[in-house]
Protein backbone atom coordinates (compact mmCIF):
# COMPACT_ATOMS: atom_id res chain seq x y z
CA UNK A 1 0.00 0.00 0.00
CA UNK A 2 1.39 3.37 -1.05
CA UNK A 3 0.11 5.65 1.70
CA UNK A 4 2.18 8.56 0.38
CA UNK A 5 -0.35 8.84 -2.46
CA UNK A 6 -2.97 9.88 0.08
CA UNK A 7 -1.03 12.93 1.19
CA UNK A 8 -1.47 15.03 -1.93
CA UNK A 9 -4.90 16.58 -2.52
CA UNK A 10 -7.03 15.01 -5.22
CA UNK A 11 -7.61 17.36 -8.17
CA UNK A 12 -10.98 19.09 -8.23
CA UNK A 13 -12.27 17.83 -4.90
CA UNK A 14 -11.92 21.06 -2.97
CA UNK A 15 -13.37 23.04 -5.92
CA UNK A 16 -16.40 20.73 -5.99
CA UNK A 17 -16.86 21.17 -2.26
CA UNK A 18 -16.65 24.96 -2.60
CA UNK A 19 -19.61 24.95 -4.99
CA UNK A 20 -21.54 22.50 -2.81
CA UNK A 21 -20.83 24.65 0.27
CA UNK A 22 -22.49 27.62 -1.44
CA UNK A 23 -25.63 25.64 -2.19
CA UNK A 24 -25.67 24.12 1.31
CA UNK A 25 -25.42 27.60 2.76
CA UNK A 26 -28.56 28.60 0.84
CA UNK A 27 -30.48 25.79 2.57
CA UNK A 28 -29.79 27.34 5.97
CA UNK A 29 -32.12 30.26 5.30
CA UNK A 30 -34.32 28.36 2.85
CA UNK A 31 -34.87 28.64 -0.89
CA UNK A 32 -38.00 30.80 -0.75
CA UNK A 33 -36.29 34.17 -0.94
CA UNK A 34 -32.61 33.69 -1.72
CA UNK A 35 -30.45 36.77 -1.07
CA UNK A 36 -27.58 37.99 -3.23
CA UNK A 37 -25.08 35.52 -1.74
CA UNK A 38 -27.45 32.58 -2.23
CA UNK A 39 -28.26 33.64 -5.79
CA UNK A 40 -24.56 33.71 -6.59
CA UNK A 41 -24.20 30.24 -5.06
CA UNK A 42 -27.06 28.89 -7.19
CA UNK A 43 -25.49 30.36 -10.33
CA UNK A 44 -22.19 28.75 -9.37
CA UNK A 45 -23.95 25.39 -9.04
CA UNK A 46 -25.46 25.78 -12.51
CA UNK A 47 -22.10 26.84 -13.94
CA UNK A 48 -20.37 23.82 -12.41
CA UNK A 49 -22.58 21.40 -14.38
CA UNK A 50 -22.91 23.57 -17.50
CA UNK A 51 -20.84 21.11 -19.53
CA UNK A 52 -22.95 18.11 -18.60
CA UNK A 53 -26.31 16.70 -19.70
CA UNK A 54 -27.81 18.31 -16.57
CA UNK A 55 -27.00 21.84 -17.81
CA UNK A 56 -30.41 22.86 -19.18
CA UNK A 57 -32.52 21.55 -16.35
CA UNK A 58 -30.28 22.93 -13.63
CA UNK A 59 -30.11 26.37 -15.27
CA UNK A 60 -33.89 26.45 -15.47
CA UNK A 61 -34.25 25.29 -11.85
CA UNK A 62 -31.89 28.05 -10.71
CA UNK A 63 -33.87 30.71 -12.61
CA UNK A 64 -37.17 29.48 -11.17
CA UNK A 65 -35.75 29.35 -7.65
CA UNK A 66 -34.52 32.91 -7.92
CA UNK A 67 -37.91 33.95 -9.29
CA UNK A 68 -39.59 32.36 -6.26
CA UNK A 69 -41.53 29.68 -8.15
CA UNK A 70 -39.72 26.49 -7.23
CA UNK A 71 -41.35 23.10 -7.81
CA UNK A 72 -40.47 19.51 -6.89
CA UNK A 73 -38.92 19.04 -10.31
CA UNK A 74 -36.66 22.06 -9.88
CA UNK A 75 -35.52 20.81 -6.47
CA UNK A 76 -34.72 17.45 -8.03
CA UNK A 77 -32.58 19.20 -10.66
CA UNK A 78 -30.67 21.18 -8.00
CA UNK A 79 -30.12 17.99 -6.02
CA UNK A 80 -28.94 16.21 -9.17
CA UNK A 81 -26.33 18.92 -9.68
CA UNK A 82 -25.12 18.77 -6.08
CA UNK A 83 -25.04 14.96 -6.19
CA UNK A 84 -23.14 14.95 -9.47
CA UNK A 85 -20.42 17.14 -7.95
CA UNK A 86 -20.07 14.99 -4.83
CA UNK A 87 -20.31 11.86 -6.97
CA UNK A 88 -17.37 13.11 -9.02
CA UNK A 89 -15.45 13.91 -5.83
CA UNK A 90 -16.19 10.39 -4.60
CA UNK A 91 -14.94 8.86 -7.83
CA UNK A 92 -11.72 10.85 -7.78
CA UNK A 93 -11.04 10.00 -4.14
CA UNK A 94 -11.81 6.32 -4.68
CA UNK A 95 -9.56 6.19 -7.74
CA UNK A 96 -6.72 7.63 -5.64
CA UNK A 97 -7.40 5.14 -2.88
CA UNK A 98 -7.44 2.23 -5.34
CA UNK A 99 -4.16 3.43 -6.79
CA UNK A 100 -2.62 3.63 -3.31
CA UNK A 101 -3.90 0.17 -2.39
CA UNK A 102 -3.12 -1.36 -5.79
CA UNK A 103 -6.75 -2.44 -5.87
CA UNK A 104 -8.54 -3.34 -9.09
CA UNK A 105 -12.19 -2.43 -9.34
CA UNK A 106 -14.87 -3.53 -11.77
CA UNK A 107 -16.95 -1.12 -13.82
CA UNK A 108 -20.65 -0.53 -13.28
CA UNK A 109 -22.83 -2.31 -15.83
CA UNK A 110 -24.76 0.10 -18.06
CA UNK A 111 -28.07 0.92 -16.41
CA UNK A 112 -31.37 0.40 -18.10
CA UNK A 113 -34.15 2.86 -17.34
CA UNK A 114 -35.06 2.74 -13.64
CA UNK A 115 -38.04 0.55 -12.98
CA UNK A 116 -40.42 2.13 -10.51
CA UNK A 117 -40.59 0.39 -7.15
CA UNK A 118 -44.22 1.45 -7.07
CA UNK A 119 -45.88 3.23 -4.16
CA UNK A 120 -45.60 6.53 -6.01
CA UNK A 121 -48.00 8.20 -3.58
CA UNK A 122 -45.63 7.45 -0.67
CA UNK A 123 -42.71 8.91 -2.60
CA UNK A 124 -44.78 11.98 -3.44
CA UNK A 125 -45.60 12.48 0.25
CA UNK A 126 -41.89 12.29 1.10
CA UNK A 127 -41.00 14.77 -1.67
CA UNK A 128 -43.64 17.18 -0.49
CA UNK A 129 -42.18 17.24 3.02
CA UNK A 130 -38.64 17.60 1.65
CA UNK A 131 -39.80 20.57 -0.46
CA UNK A 132 -41.33 22.22 2.59
CA UNK A 133 -38.02 21.76 4.42
CA UNK A 134 -36.01 23.31 1.60
CA UNK A 135 -38.35 26.29 1.43
CA UNK A 136 -38.32 26.84 5.19
CA UNK A 137 -34.56 26.28 5.54
CA UNK A 138 -32.88 24.87 8.64
CA UNK A 139 -33.42 28.14 10.45
CA UNK A 140 -37.12 27.98 9.64
CA UNK A 141 -37.97 24.50 10.94
CA UNK A 142 -40.43 24.22 13.80
CA UNK A 143 -42.04 21.30 15.63
CA UNK A 144 -45.06 21.25 13.31
CA UNK A 145 -43.00 21.04 10.14
CA UNK A 146 -40.83 18.26 11.58
CA UNK A 147 -43.80 16.18 12.76
CA UNK A 148 -45.33 16.34 9.28
CA UNK A 149 -42.77 13.69 8.34
CA UNK A 150 -44.19 11.14 10.80
CA UNK A 151 -46.90 9.69 8.61
CA UNK A 152 -44.76 9.42 5.49
CA UNK A 153 -41.93 7.79 7.46
CA UNK A 154 -44.22 5.24 9.05
CA UNK A 155 -45.65 4.26 5.68
CA UNK A 156 -42.19 4.04 4.07
CA UNK A 157 -40.83 1.82 6.86
CA UNK A 158 -43.76 -0.55 6.46
CA UNK A 159 -42.93 -1.03 2.77
CA UNK A 160 -39.79 -3.22 2.42
CA UNK A 161 -38.88 -1.84 -1.03
CA UNK A 162 -38.83 1.69 0.39
CA UNK A 163 -37.06 0.88 3.68
CA UNK A 164 -33.89 2.70 2.59
CA UNK A 165 -35.72 6.00 2.25
CA UNK A 166 -37.74 5.36 5.42
CA UNK A 167 -34.64 4.68 7.54
CA UNK A 168 -32.90 7.76 6.14
CA UNK A 169 -35.85 10.10 6.71
CA UNK A 170 -36.42 8.74 10.21
CA UNK A 171 -32.83 9.38 11.26
CA UNK A 172 -32.88 12.82 9.65
CA UNK A 173 -36.25 13.80 11.15
CA UNK A 174 -35.02 12.65 14.57
CA UNK A 175 -32.16 15.14 14.39
CA UNK A 176 -34.48 17.92 13.23
CA UNK A 177 -36.91 17.06 16.05
CA UNK A 178 -34.17 17.24 18.67
CA UNK A 179 -32.92 20.55 17.24
CA UNK A 180 -36.19 22.41 16.53
CA UNK A 181 -37.02 25.25 16.53
CA UNK A 182 -34.31 26.11 14.03
CA UNK A 183 -34.33 29.82 14.84
CA UNK A 184 -32.68 29.25 18.23
CA UNK A 185 -30.18 26.53 17.29
CA UNK A 186 -26.69 27.54 18.45
CA UNK A 187 -25.06 25.84 15.44
CA UNK A 188 -26.37 24.25 12.26
CA UNK A 189 -24.86 21.02 10.84
CA UNK A 190 -24.87 22.58 7.38
CA UNK A 191 -23.10 19.92 5.32
CA UNK A 192 -24.69 16.97 7.08
CA UNK A 193 -28.30 18.10 6.78
CA UNK A 194 -27.83 19.14 3.17
CA UNK A 195 -26.39 15.66 2.52
CA UNK A 196 -29.27 13.85 4.23
CA UNK A 197 -31.88 16.07 2.59
CA UNK A 198 -30.33 15.72 -0.86
CA UNK A 199 -30.00 11.94 -0.64
CA UNK A 200 -33.63 11.72 0.47
CA UNK A 201 -34.75 13.84 -2.50
CA UNK A 202 -32.80 11.50 -4.80
CA UNK A 203 -34.28 8.33 -3.30
CA UNK A 204 -37.79 9.81 -3.43
CA UNK A 205 -37.68 10.07 -7.23
CA UNK A 206 -39.75 7.33 -8.90
CA UNK A 207 -37.43 4.51 -9.99
CA UNK A 208 -34.50 5.50 -7.76
CA UNK A 209 -35.10 2.61 -5.38
CA UNK A 210 -35.46 0.00 -8.09
CA UNK A 211 -33.45 -3.05 -7.08
CA UNK A 212 -30.37 -3.76 -9.19
CA UNK A 213 -30.43 -7.19 -10.76
CA UNK A 214 -28.75 -9.64 -8.38
CA UNK A 215 -26.36 -12.36 -9.45
CA UNK A 216 -25.15 -15.27 -7.34
CA UNK A 217 -21.74 -16.19 -5.92
CA UNK A 218 -20.21 -19.26 -4.35
CA UNK A 219 -16.99 -19.80 -2.44
CA UNK A 220 -15.31 -19.47 0.91
CA UNK A 221 -16.17 -16.24 2.74
CA UNK A 222 -13.42 -14.90 5.01
CA UNK A 223 -14.63 -12.06 7.29
CA UNK A 224 -12.39 -9.05 7.94
CA UNK A 225 -14.57 -7.18 10.41
CA UNK A 226 -17.83 -5.40 11.13
CA UNK A 227 -18.80 -1.78 10.57
CA UNK A 228 -21.73 -0.87 12.83
CA UNK A 229 -24.25 1.87 11.96
CA UNK A 230 -26.92 3.19 14.24
CA UNK A 231 -29.46 5.94 14.68
CA UNK A 232 -32.24 6.04 17.27
CA UNK A 233 -34.59 3.75 15.31
CA UNK A 234 -32.28 1.66 13.12
CA UNK A 235 -29.14 -0.44 13.44
CA UNK A 236 -27.07 -2.05 10.71
CA UNK A 237 -24.07 -4.35 10.88
CA UNK A 238 -22.07 -4.40 7.68
CA UNK A 239 -19.53 -7.20 7.43
CA UNK A 240 -16.52 -6.64 5.17
CA UNK A 241 -15.07 -9.88 3.86
CA UNK A 242 -12.96 -11.53 1.18
CA UNK A 243 -14.78 -14.11 -0.91
CA UNK A 244 -12.62 -16.77 -2.56
CA UNK A 245 -14.30 -17.45 -5.87
CA UNK A 246 -13.30 -19.56 -8.86
CA UNK A 247 -12.22 -16.26 -10.50
CA UNK A 248 -10.02 -15.20 -7.60
CA UNK A 249 -10.59 -13.32 -4.34
CA UNK A 250 -13.04 -10.43 -4.28
CA UNK A 251 -14.15 -7.92 -1.66
CA UNK A 252 -17.78 -8.17 -0.60
CA UNK A 253 -20.04 -6.82 2.12
CA UNK A 254 -22.90 -8.55 3.93
CA UNK A 255 -25.42 -6.42 5.80
CA UNK A 256 -28.13 -7.03 8.30
CA UNK A 257 -30.28 -4.25 9.70
CA UNK A 258 -33.24 -3.98 12.03
CA UNK A 259 -35.57 -1.26 13.26
CA UNK A 260 -35.12 -0.50 16.96
CA UNK A 261 -35.93 2.04 19.64
CA UNK A 262 -33.58 4.69 20.99
CA UNK A 263 -32.92 3.06 24.38
CA UNK A 264 -31.49 -0.07 22.72
CA UNK A 265 -27.82 0.86 22.27
CA UNK A 266 -24.31 -0.54 22.64
CA UNK A 267 -23.94 -4.30 22.82
CA UNK A 268 -27.73 -4.56 23.25
CA UNK A 269 -28.25 -4.13 19.50
CA UNK A 270 -26.64 -7.39 18.38
CA UNK A 271 -29.55 -9.52 19.55
CA UNK A 272 -31.84 -7.71 17.13
CA UNK A 273 -29.60 -8.81 14.24
CA UNK A 274 -28.25 -12.20 15.24
CA UNK A 275 -31.17 -14.41 14.28
CA UNK A 276 -31.17 -13.01 10.73
CA UNK A 277 -27.62 -13.84 9.80
CA UNK A 278 -25.51 -16.80 10.93
CA UNK A 279 -22.53 -14.74 9.76
CA UNK A 280 -22.54 -12.75 13.03
CA UNK A 281 -21.95 -15.90 15.09
CA UNK A 282 -19.26 -16.99 12.62
CA UNK A 283 -17.43 -13.72 13.25
CA UNK A 284 -17.41 -14.22 17.01
CA UNK A 285 -16.18 -17.80 16.48
CA UNK A 286 -13.65 -16.59 13.86
CA UNK A 287 -14.87 -18.98 11.21
CA UNK A 288 -15.18 -18.80 7.47
CA UNK A 289 -18.49 -19.59 5.81
CA UNK A 290 -19.06 -21.64 2.69
CA UNK A 291 -21.46 -19.89 0.33
CA UNK A 292 -23.46 -21.58 -2.39
CA UNK A 293 -25.32 -19.38 -4.88
CA UNK A 294 -25.58 -16.47 -2.43
CA UNK A 295 -27.39 -13.53 -4.08
CA UNK A 296 -25.06 -10.57 -4.72
CA UNK A 297 -25.63 -7.09 -6.19
CA UNK A 298 -23.36 -5.62 -8.87
CA UNK A 299 -22.05 -3.30 -6.10
CA UNK A 300 -20.61 -6.24 -4.12
CA UNK A 301 -23.34 -6.48 -1.49
CA UNK A 302 -24.35 -10.02 -0.60
CA UNK A 303 -28.09 -10.26 0.07
CA UNK A 304 -27.52 -12.64 2.93
CA UNK A 305 -29.66 -15.72 3.42
CA UNK A 306 -28.65 -18.47 5.84
CA UNK A 307 -30.08 -20.97 3.32
CA UNK A 308 -27.06 -20.28 1.08
CA UNK A 309 -24.37 -20.49 3.79
CA UNK A 310 -22.74 -23.20 5.89
CA UNK A 311 -20.24 -22.76 8.73
CA UNK A 312 -16.68 -23.30 7.49
CA UNK A 313 -13.20 -23.82 8.90
CA UNK A 314 -11.54 -21.47 11.43
CA UNK A 315 -10.38 -18.23 9.78
CA UNK A 316 -8.49 -15.44 11.50
CA UNK A 317 -9.12 -11.94 10.04
CA UNK A 318 -5.47 -10.80 10.27
CA UNK A 319 -4.40 -13.91 8.36
CA UNK A 320 -7.04 -13.12 5.73
CA UNK A 321 -5.92 -9.49 5.55
CA UNK A 322 -2.23 -10.44 5.21
CA UNK A 323 -2.70 -13.19 2.65
CA UNK A 324 -5.77 -12.24 0.61
CA UNK A 325 -6.59 -8.55 0.91
CA UNK A 326 -3.95 -7.15 -1.44
CA UNK A 327 -5.10 -9.30 -4.34
CA UNK A 328 -8.86 -9.03 -3.77
CA UNK A 329 -10.80 -7.21 -6.47
CA UNK A 330 -13.36 -4.62 -5.47
CA UNK A 331 -16.85 -4.05 -6.83
CA UNK A 332 -17.94 -0.82 -8.52
CA UNK A 333 -20.07 1.64 -6.55
CA UNK A 334 -23.74 1.95 -7.57
CA UNK A 335 -24.36 5.37 -9.22
CA UNK A 336 -26.79 6.70 -6.60
CA UNK A 337 -24.47 5.74 -3.73
CA UNK A 338 -21.56 7.79 -5.01
CA UNK A 339 -20.78 10.22 -2.20
CA UNK A 340 -17.57 10.56 -0.17
CA UNK A 341 -19.35 9.37 3.00
CA UNK A 342 -19.72 5.96 1.31
CA UNK A 343 -15.93 5.50 1.07
CA UNK A 344 -15.18 2.65 3.48
CA UNK A 345 -12.36 0.62 1.97
CA UNK A 346 -10.88 -2.21 4.03
CA UNK A 347 -7.09 -2.01 4.39
CA UNK A 348 -4.41 -3.59 6.53
CA UNK A 349 -1.85 -1.25 8.00
CA UNK A 350 1.30 -2.21 9.85
CA UNK A 351 4.63 -0.67 10.70
CA UNK A 352 3.20 2.57 12.05
CA UNK A 353 3.83 4.50 15.21
CA UNK A 354 0.89 5.66 17.30
CA UNK A 355 0.30 8.83 19.23
CA UNK A 356 -2.53 9.55 21.65
CA UNK A 357 -3.35 13.20 22.28
CA UNK A 358 -6.24 15.28 23.58
CA UNK A 359 -8.19 15.21 20.36
CA UNK A 360 -7.69 11.54 19.57
CA UNK A 361 -5.28 8.97 18.25
CA UNK A 362 -3.08 9.11 15.16
CA UNK A 363 -1.20 6.40 13.27
CA UNK A 364 1.93 7.60 11.50
CA UNK A 365 3.12 5.67 8.47
CA UNK A 366 6.03 6.54 6.19
CA UNK A 367 4.73 9.68 4.47
CA UNK A 368 1.31 9.89 6.11
CA UNK A 369 -0.25 10.55 9.48
CA UNK A 370 -3.74 9.07 9.66
CA UNK A 371 -6.23 10.22 12.23
CA UNK A 372 -8.26 7.46 13.88
CA UNK A 373 -11.99 8.12 13.39
CA UNK A 374 -13.04 7.96 17.02
CA UNK A 375 -16.61 8.93 16.17
CA UNK A 376 -16.93 5.65 14.32
CA UNK A 377 -15.71 3.62 17.30
CA UNK A 378 -18.47 2.24 19.51
CA UNK A 379 -19.06 0.49 22.81
CA UNK A 380 -20.73 -2.59 21.29
CA UNK A 381 -17.44 -4.50 21.27
CA UNK A 382 -14.12 -4.77 23.11
CA UNK A 383 -12.07 -2.51 20.80
CA UNK A 384 -11.18 0.81 22.45
CA UNK A 385 -9.16 3.88 21.42
CA UNK A 386 -6.58 2.91 24.08
CA UNK A 387 -6.06 -0.47 22.38
CA UNK A 388 -5.67 1.29 19.03
CA UNK A 389 -3.08 3.57 20.59
CA UNK A 390 -1.20 0.47 21.82
CA UNK A 391 -1.52 -1.40 18.53
CA UNK A 392 1.05 -2.63 16.03
CA UNK A 393 -1.30 -3.71 13.21
CA UNK A 394 -4.78 -2.61 12.23
CA UNK A 395 -7.53 -3.76 9.90
CA UNK A 396 -9.60 -0.69 9.22
CA UNK A 397 -11.80 1.16 6.80
CA UNK A 398 -10.24 4.13 5.06
CA UNK A 399 -12.74 6.96 5.12
CA UNK A 400 -12.89 10.54 3.97
CA UNK A 401 -14.78 13.45 5.55
CA UNK A 402 -12.68 16.41 4.46
CA UNK A 403 -9.50 14.38 4.98
CA UNK A 404 -8.52 10.71 5.14
CA UNK A 405 -9.16 8.86 8.39
CA UNK A 406 -9.04 5.24 9.52
CA UNK A 407 -11.91 3.47 11.26
CA UNK A 408 -10.39 0.48 13.07
CA UNK A 409 -12.24 -2.82 12.74
CA UNK A 410 -9.55 -4.83 14.55
CA UNK A 411 -6.07 -4.34 15.96
CA UNK A 412 -3.16 -6.43 17.10
CA UNK A 413 -1.80 -5.00 20.31
CA UNK A 414 0.77 -5.94 22.93
CA UNK A 415 -1.00 -6.96 26.12
CA UNK A 416 1.25 -8.40 28.85
CA UNK A 417 4.03 -9.00 26.31
CA UNK A 418 1.78 -11.09 24.13
CA UNK A 419 0.29 -10.02 20.83
CA UNK A 420 -3.49 -10.27 20.97
CA UNK A 421 -6.05 -9.45 18.29
CA UNK A 422 -9.09 -7.42 19.38
CA UNK A 423 -12.09 -7.04 17.08
CA UNK A 424 -14.76 -4.29 17.18
CA UNK A 425 -17.36 -6.86 16.12
CA UNK A 426 -16.25 -9.63 18.48
CA UNK A 427 -19.55 -9.57 20.40
CA UNK A 428 -21.76 -9.89 17.33
CA UNK A 429 -22.47 -13.53 18.15
CA UNK A 430 -22.50 -13.03 21.92
CA UNK A 431 -20.54 -10.93 24.42
CA UNK A 432 -17.60 -12.71 26.01
CA UNK A 433 -16.97 -10.17 28.76
CA UNK A 434 -19.07 -9.50 31.87
CA UNK A 435 -19.96 -5.87 31.14
CA UNK A 436 -21.02 -6.67 27.59
CA UNK A 437 -23.11 -9.63 28.74
CA UNK A 438 -24.80 -7.46 31.36
CA UNK A 439 -25.66 -4.80 28.80
CA UNK A 440 -27.09 -7.51 26.54
CA UNK A 441 -29.26 -8.89 29.32
CA UNK A 442 -30.55 -5.40 30.16
CA UNK A 443 -31.40 -4.79 26.51
CA UNK A 444 -33.17 -8.14 26.30
CA UNK A 445 -35.21 -7.09 29.31
CA UNK A 446 -36.10 -3.78 27.65
CA UNK A 447 -37.24 -5.56 24.50
CA UNK A 448 -39.39 -7.88 26.62
CA UNK A 449 -41.08 -4.94 28.38
CA UNK A 450 -41.82 -3.18 25.09
CA UNK A 451 -43.14 -6.34 23.43
CA UNK A 452 -45.41 -6.93 26.42
CA UNK A 453 -46.67 -3.34 26.18
CA UNK A 454 -47.16 -3.74 22.44
CA UNK A 455 -49.13 -6.92 23.05
CA UNK A 456 -51.51 -5.11 25.38
CA UNK A 457 -51.81 -1.73 23.70
CA UNK A 458 -50.92 -2.03 20.03
CA UNK A 459 -53.03 -4.89 18.73
CA UNK A 460 -56.46 -3.67 19.66
Amino acid at each position, binding site marked *: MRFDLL*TTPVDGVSEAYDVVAGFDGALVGGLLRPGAEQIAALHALAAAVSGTPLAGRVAEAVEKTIAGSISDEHLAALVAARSALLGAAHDALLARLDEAAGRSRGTWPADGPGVSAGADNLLAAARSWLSDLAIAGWRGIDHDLV*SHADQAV*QALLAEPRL*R*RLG*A*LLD*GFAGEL*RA*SAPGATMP*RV*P*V*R*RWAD*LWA*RAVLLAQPGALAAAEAGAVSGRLLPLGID*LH*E*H*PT*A*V*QAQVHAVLETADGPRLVRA*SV*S*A*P*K*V*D*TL*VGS*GVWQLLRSH*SALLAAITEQRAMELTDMPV*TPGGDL*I*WSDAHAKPGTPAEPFATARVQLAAAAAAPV*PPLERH*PVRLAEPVLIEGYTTAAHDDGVTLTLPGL*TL*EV*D*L*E*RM*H*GAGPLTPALVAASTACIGLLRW*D*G*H*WTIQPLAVEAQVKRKTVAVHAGAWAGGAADAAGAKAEA*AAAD*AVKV*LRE*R*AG*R*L*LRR
Partner: protein
Amino acid sequence: MNAAQKPWEERSAARVVAPARPRKLAKVPFVELADGRLQGVVSSGSDIERVYVSSLTAANHSFHCSTNNNRPCGGIRSGGCNHLRALADEAVLQYGVARVARYLRADVAEDATTGAAVLAAVNAWHEPSAGAPVFSRFLRHLAYLELPATTEPLPELHWFPAGGAVR
Protein backbone atom coordinates in the same frame (compact mmCIF):
# COMPACT_ATOMS: atom_id res chain seq x y z
CA MET B 1 1.30 15.79 6.43
CA ASN B 2 -2.41 15.32 6.78
CA ALA B 3 -5.08 17.95 6.44
CA ALA B 4 -6.64 19.29 9.61
CA GLN B 5 -10.07 18.08 10.60
CA LYS B 6 -12.89 20.08 9.05
CA PRO B 7 -15.15 22.13 11.31
CA TRP B 8 -18.30 20.36 12.55
CA GLU B 9 -20.48 22.39 10.18
CA GLU B 10 -18.57 21.05 7.17
CA ARG B 11 -18.61 17.37 8.05
CA SER B 12 -21.01 14.82 6.56
CA ALA B 13 -20.84 12.50 9.56
CA ALA B 14 -20.99 15.23 12.21
CA ARG B 15 -22.82 13.98 15.27
CA VAL B 16 -25.85 16.12 16.08
CA VAL B 17 -27.60 14.20 18.85
CA ALA B 18 -25.94 12.12 21.55
CA PRO B 19 -27.20 8.52 21.69
CA ALA B 20 -29.78 7.85 24.39
CA ARG B 21 -28.57 5.91 27.41
CA PRO B 22 -30.17 2.56 28.22
CA ARG B 23 -32.45 2.41 31.25
CA LYS B 24 -35.00 0.04 32.80
CA LEU B 25 -38.33 0.43 31.00
CA ALA B 26 -40.80 -1.36 33.29
CA LYS B 27 -42.13 1.76 35.03
CA VAL B 28 -41.73 4.33 32.25
CA PRO B 29 -41.72 2.47 28.93
CA PHE B 30 -41.49 5.64 26.84
CA VAL B 31 -40.04 9.10 27.29
CA GLU B 32 -38.91 11.66 24.71
CA LEU B 33 -38.04 15.29 24.18
CA ALA B 34 -40.17 16.13 21.16
CA ASP B 35 -42.77 18.57 19.85
CA GLY B 36 -41.57 21.16 22.36
CA ARG B 37 -42.36 18.92 25.30
CA LEU B 38 -40.95 16.40 27.70
CA GLN B 39 -43.51 13.68 27.10
CA GLY B 40 -44.04 10.00 27.70
CA VAL B 41 -45.97 7.14 29.12
CA VAL B 42 -45.93 5.77 32.69
CA SER B 43 -47.27 2.33 33.57
CA SER B 44 -50.01 2.25 36.19
CA GLY B 45 -48.94 0.59 39.43
CA SER B 46 -52.32 -1.03 39.95
CA ASP B 47 -53.80 -1.85 36.53
CA ILE B 48 -51.65 -3.62 33.93
CA GLU B 49 -53.99 -2.50 31.12
CA ARG B 50 -53.66 1.18 31.99
CA VAL B 51 -50.93 3.71 31.29
CA TYR B 52 -50.67 7.40 32.10
CA VAL B 53 -49.75 9.92 29.43
CA SER B 54 -47.79 12.82 30.90
CA SER B 55 -46.16 15.84 29.34
CA LEU B 56 -44.50 19.11 30.27
CA THR B 57 -44.38 21.97 27.77
CA ALA B 58 -41.07 23.79 27.29
CA ALA B 59 -42.66 27.07 26.21
CA ASN B 60 -44.80 27.79 29.30
CA HIS B 61 -44.08 24.90 31.71
CA SER B 62 -47.69 23.71 31.80
CA PHE B 63 -48.14 19.99 32.40
CA HIS B 64 -50.73 17.40 31.49
CA CYS B 65 -51.47 13.94 32.89
CA SER B 66 -54.27 11.55 31.99
CA THR B 67 -54.84 7.84 31.34
CA ASN B 68 -54.64 6.44 27.81
CA ASN B 69 -58.47 6.46 27.93
CA ASN B 70 -58.39 10.20 28.61
CA ARG B 71 -59.44 10.05 32.27
CA PRO B 72 -57.72 12.79 34.28
CA CYS B 73 -54.94 11.72 36.62
CA GLY B 74 -56.19 11.64 40.21
CA GLY B 75 -52.86 12.62 41.73
CA ILE B 76 -52.37 16.11 40.34
CA ARG B 77 -50.92 18.60 42.81
CA SER B 78 -49.25 21.93 42.35
CA GLY B 79 -45.89 21.28 40.67
CA GLY B 80 -46.86 17.95 39.08
CA CYS B 81 -47.93 14.39 39.91
CA ASN B 82 -46.10 11.13 40.59
CA HIS B 83 -46.23 10.23 36.90
CA LEU B 84 -44.62 13.48 35.81
CA ARG B 85 -41.94 13.01 38.48
CA ALA B 86 -41.22 9.48 37.24
CA LEU B 87 -41.11 10.80 33.68
CA ALA B 88 -38.60 13.53 34.59
CA ASP B 89 -36.40 11.05 36.47
CA GLU B 90 -36.30 8.63 33.54
CA ALA B 91 -35.71 11.45 31.04
CA VAL B 92 -32.64 12.42 33.05
CA LEU B 93 -31.40 8.80 32.94
CA GLN B 94 -32.01 8.62 29.19
CA TYR B 95 -30.70 12.01 28.07
CA GLY B 96 -28.70 13.42 30.97
CA VAL B 97 -29.84 16.33 33.13
CA ALA B 98 -28.20 19.02 31.00
CA ARG B 99 -30.07 18.09 27.83
CA VAL B 100 -33.43 17.79 29.63
CA ALA B 101 -32.98 21.14 31.37
CA ARG B 102 -31.86 22.82 28.14
CA TYR B 103 -34.84 21.47 26.20
CA LEU B 104 -37.28 22.57 28.90
CA ARG B 105 -35.52 25.91 29.38
CA ALA B 106 -35.23 25.05 33.06
CA ASP B 107 -32.77 27.12 35.04
CA VAL B 108 -31.20 24.35 37.13
CA ALA B 109 -28.21 24.67 39.44
CA GLU B 110 -24.93 23.57 37.91
CA ASP B 111 -24.70 20.59 40.27
CA ALA B 112 -28.27 19.41 39.58
CA THR B 113 -28.47 15.69 38.85
CA THR B 114 -32.12 14.66 39.12
CA GLY B 115 -35.49 14.99 37.45
CA ALA B 116 -36.78 16.47 40.71
CA ALA B 117 -34.29 19.33 40.36
CA VAL B 118 -35.56 20.04 36.86
CA LEU B 119 -39.20 20.04 38.02
CA ALA B 120 -38.35 22.27 40.98
CA ALA B 121 -36.73 24.75 38.60
CA VAL B 122 -39.74 25.03 36.26
CA ASN B 123 -42.53 25.17 38.84
CA ALA B 124 -44.94 23.28 36.55
CA TRP B 125 -48.60 24.23 36.52
CA HIS B 126 -51.49 22.07 35.44
CA GLU B 127 -53.29 22.70 32.17
CA PRO B 128 -55.25 19.77 30.71
CA SER B 129 -54.46 19.21 27.03
CA ALA B 130 -54.87 16.23 24.72
CA GLY B 131 -52.95 13.09 25.67
CA ALA B 132 -53.77 11.34 22.40
CA PRO B 133 -50.86 12.69 20.29
CA VAL B 134 -48.35 11.53 22.90
CA PHE B 135 -50.03 8.15 23.20
CA SER B 136 -49.91 7.70 19.43
CA ARG B 137 -46.18 8.58 19.49
CA PHE B 138 -45.81 5.77 22.03
CA LEU B 139 -47.69 3.30 19.84
CA ARG B 140 -45.50 4.32 16.91
CA HIS B 141 -42.44 3.74 19.13
CA LEU B 142 -43.68 0.23 20.03
CA ALA B 143 -44.30 -0.57 16.37
CA TYR B 144 -40.56 -0.37 15.53
CA LEU B 145 -39.92 -3.68 17.21
CA GLU B 146 -42.68 -5.27 15.14
CA LEU B 147 -41.04 -4.40 11.81
CA PRO B 148 -38.94 -7.13 10.17
CA ALA B 149 -35.14 -7.08 9.89
CA THR B 150 -33.57 -7.13 6.44
CA THR B 151 -30.30 -8.26 4.88
CA GLU B 152 -30.55 -5.78 2.02
CA PRO B 153 -27.97 -3.04 2.53
CA LEU B 154 -29.00 0.43 3.76
CA PRO B 155 -26.14 2.52 2.31
CA GLU B 156 -27.52 5.73 3.83
CA LEU B 157 -26.63 4.46 7.31
CA HIS B 158 -22.98 5.35 6.55
CA TRP B 159 -24.09 8.81 7.67
CA PHE B 160 -24.99 7.32 11.05
CA PRO B 161 -21.98 5.64 12.68
CA ALA B 162 -22.61 3.76 15.92
CA GLY B 163 -21.06 5.26 19.02
CA GLY B 164 -19.07 8.45 19.05
CA ALA B 165 -19.23 11.53 21.21
CA VAL B 166 -20.86 14.89 20.60
CA ARG B 167 -18.56 17.79 19.82
